[in-house]
C-alpha cells in the first residue's frame, strides 16, 4: 500500500495534488468555480478573516495536528471500521457493498470529526463561548459534546419543528450541558436555525465561535469542514486497499449540506471512481415537497455562500421538505454545487418512502439501524447494486446511526411506542 495511505491524518496535504487536481480548491477568496465566497454582514468580515488566518496557521502547526489526531483516535474512536456488508450484498445480489462505519464514532455520526477540529480552532483563537445550528440534532450533539469536553458554554439553535421530531437528541444536548434554543421563525427547521445562529454570532462576535456543521457558510468554513471530514475518505481508501487491493467502483453518500459526502468523495476526486451524492427527494422531485437543491434549485446566495438554492422566481427561499431533519435544508455546500456543475459527481434523488424502506432493510439484514439521512444513500444502493456485476465494489458512507430516528420512523409506520 502506498505510504501516504497508511497513516490516517485528518489534515494531510495530498502529495499528488497538482494544478490539474480537482482537490486544490477553493481559490484564495473561497470560490469553487462560480460558487462559494464570503457573503456576510460586514460585522462578521474581520472575524472570518481572522478565522482564515488562524486556520492556515493551525494547519501548519504540528502541535495542532497532533492534538487533533490524538482526540480523533482516543476520544472519537477513529479509525472507524470499513465493513464488508456480506448479508446485504447477498440480499441485493450484485456489487460488493462496503460500509464506512461513521455511525460507530463517539456521538453516533460523522459530525464529531469536524467539531473536534473546530473547537481546537476556537481554543486557539481564545474564544470562550460556542454556538451551533442543528437540524437532526447530530451536529448539535457533537458540538455539545466537544463543548463539554473543553469546558466551554454552548448554545445550540434548532428549529421548533426539528425539536419535535428529534426529541432524543434535544435531551442529549441538554444532558451535555448545552442550552437548546428553539427557533420559531420561518419554516422552523435547519435554515431558520442557521439564521438565528448567525444573528447570535453577529451580536456576540468578540467572544463567540460558531461551529458550522456542514460544508457551507462563508469561506473558510466549506474548506475547513471538508478538511476535517476528509479523514473519512482517506481512511476508507486505505482500508479498501487493504481489503481488496483496489479502489471502489462507486462511492455514494447522502447530501444535505454535504459534509459526510465531501468527506468521503474528496480523497477520490482525482481517481477513476464514480461518485454519487444522494439528495432528499421528499415526496418526489416532481412535487414541491423535496430538499434537492441541485435537482430542483438554481444558483443564489444564502448563509454566506453562493450555491444552488431552492427559491422562487423572485429569489425568495422556498421551504425544503425531507423525512430526515438533517437533509431538510434548501441549499447545499458550494463545493458540491461546483462538482455538480463540472459533472464530476452525479447527484440523484431518493424519496422519503424509499429511504424508509432502506432504513428497515439495513436493520433487518445487517443488524444496523442507520440514520434516516444515511438511509437515502442506502436506498440508492438497493437500486444500483443488483444492476452491477459481482466483482464491482460500492463504498457507502454509513454516516450516522438511527437511534435518534426511531420515534419519527415509528410514527411514519403507524407503530405505537
Amino acid at each position, binding site marked *: 500500500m502506498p505510504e501516504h495511505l497508511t497513516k490516517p491524518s485528518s489534515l494531510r496535504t495530498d502529495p499528488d495534488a497538482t494544478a490539474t487536481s480537482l482537490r486544490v480548491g477553493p481559490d484564495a477568496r473561497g470560490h469553487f468555480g462560480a460558487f462559494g465566497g464570503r457573503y456576510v454582514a460586514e460585522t462578521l468580515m474581520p472575524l472570518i478573516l481572522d478565522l482564515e488566518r488562524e486556520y492556515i496557521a493551525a494547519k501548519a502547526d504540528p502541535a495542532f495536528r497532533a492534538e487533533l489526531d490524538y482526540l480523533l483516535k482516543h476520544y472519537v474512536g477513529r479509525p472507524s471500521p470499513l465493513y464488508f456488508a456480506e448479508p446485504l450484498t447477498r440480499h441485493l445480489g450484485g456489487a460488493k457493498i462496503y460500509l464506512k462505519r461513521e455511525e460507530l464514532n463517539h456521538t453516533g455520526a460523522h459530525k464529531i470529526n469536524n467539531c473536534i477540529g473546530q473547537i481546537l480552532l476556537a481554543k486557539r483563537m481564545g474564544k470562550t463561548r460556542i454556538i451551533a445550528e442543528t437540524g437532526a440534532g447530530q451536529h448539535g450533539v457533537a458540538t455539545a459534546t466537544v463543548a463539554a469536553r473543553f469546558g466551554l458554554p454552548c448554545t445550540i439553535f434548532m428549529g421548533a419543528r426539528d425539536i419535535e421530531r428529534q426529541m432524543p437528541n434535544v435531551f442529549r444536548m441538554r444532558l451535555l450541558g448545552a442550552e437548546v434554543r428553539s427557533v420559531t421563525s420561518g419554516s422552523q427547521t435547519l435554515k431558520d436555525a442557521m439564521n438565528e445562529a*448567525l444573528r447570535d454570532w453577529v*451580536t456576540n462576535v468578540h467572544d463567540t465561535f460558531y461551529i458550522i456543521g456542514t460544508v457551507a457558510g462563508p469561506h473558510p468554513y466549506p474548506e475547513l469542514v471538508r478538511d476535517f471530514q476528509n479523514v473519512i475518505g482517506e481512511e476508507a481508501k486505505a482500508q479498501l486497499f487493504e481489503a481488496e487491493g483496489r479502489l471502489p467502483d462507486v462511492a455514494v453518500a447522502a447530501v444535505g449540506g454535504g459534509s459526510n459526502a465531501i468527506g468521503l468523495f474528496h480523497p477520490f476526486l482525482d481517481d477513476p471512481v464514480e461518485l454519487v451524492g444522494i439528495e432528499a427527494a421528499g415526496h418526489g422531485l416532481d412535487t414541491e415537497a423535496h430538499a434537492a437543491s441541485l435537482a430542483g434549485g438554481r444558483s443564489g446566495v444564502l448563509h454566506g455562500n453562493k450555491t444552488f438554492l431552492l427559491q422562487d422566481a423572485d429569489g*425568495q427561499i422556498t421551504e425544503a421538505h425531507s423525512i430526515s431533519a438533517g437533509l431538510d435544508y434548501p441549499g447545499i455546500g458550494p463545493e458540491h454545487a461546483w462538482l455538480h456543475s463540472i459533472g464530476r459527481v452525479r447527484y440523484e434523488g431518493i424519496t422519503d418512502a424509499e429511504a424508509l424502506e432502506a432504513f428497515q432493510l439495513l436493520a433487518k439484514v445487517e443488524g444496523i439501524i442507520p440514520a434516516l439521512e444515511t438511509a437515502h444513500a442506502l436506498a440508492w444502493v438497493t437500486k444500483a447494486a443488483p444492476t452491477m456485476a459481482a466483482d464491482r465494489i460500492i463504498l457507502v458512507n454509513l454516516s450516522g446511526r438511527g437511534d435518534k430516528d426511531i420515534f419519527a420512523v415509528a410514527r411514519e409506520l403507524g407503530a405505537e411506542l
Partner: protein
Amino acid sequence: MTDRIADRFASLDRSALVTFVCGGDPNPELTAPILHALVRGGADLIEIGMPFTDPMADGPAIQQGNIRALEAGISLKKLLEIVRDFRTQDSATPLVLMGYLNPLLAHGADFGRDATAAGLDGLIIVDLPPEEAGELELGGLHLIRLATPTTDDRRLPAVLDGASGFLYYVAVAGITGQNSAAAADIEAAVRRLKAATTLPVAVGFGVKTPAQAADIARHADAVVVGSAIVDLIGNAHGRKSNDIPGEVEQFVSTLSQAVRTARPEAVLTEIGA
C-alpha cells in the same frame, strides 16, 4: 445625471434624518403613501427594505415587517413600480434600497439599470462585502458601504476603497432594532471614520427615540431610524388603523424635530474643525 444623495447632503447644514421602512409593509398599496408620509414628517433620505425570507441581520421588528410584506405579495418588480410611482411626485428625496443579495440576483443582470431607471439612488446590501461586490452591475446606483464596531484599522481601507454615496456606520455589533450603543462610543467612531473618508457618515442600528436620534445628530452627518418605524407600522396594522401614513408622519416629525434642533452652534463649529 443628478446625484440626489450628494445634493441632499450638500443642502443641509445639520445632520440628515434617514428613515427605513420595509417595502410592501403592511401591503404594497400603502407603500407609496407611507414614503410620502416619511418625507412630510421630515425624512431627508429614505431607505426602502427589499423583503427577504431569511433576513439574517435583522431583529424581530424587521423580520415581522418582511413577513407582512411578503405575505401581502411584494416583489422586487413591484417595489420598483412603487418607486417609479413615488418619483412622479417627489424628484428630490434620495431613495436607497436596502436588503439581501439573493432577490437582486434573481432579478438578473438588468437590476442596476432597472433600479436606476425607476428612480433609486443607492443600494445597501447587507450580505455583500466589498470583496464580492464586483459582479453586481450597479447601473447608476451608489453602493453604500458599511463600517461596524468590528471594522478595525486593518479592515477599514477595504471598506472605504470604492465607497460611494455615504458611509453607513452600524453602531452596534448585532442585529437591527436591539441594543443601542453608548453615545460616547458613537462619537469616537464617527470621529475616526470622518478622519478616513470625505463621504458623509450615517449612523444606524439601535436608534429608537427622538432623544437617541438627537444624540447621534450632534456628531454624525445622518442618523438612521428603522425598527422603531417598522414596529409602529406593525402595531398600527395590528390595530387595523385606517391612517398608517398619518401615524408614521407624526412619529417621524418627532424624530425630525429632535435632529433639527440637536446641534448648538458651538458643536457645529467643533465638528467643522
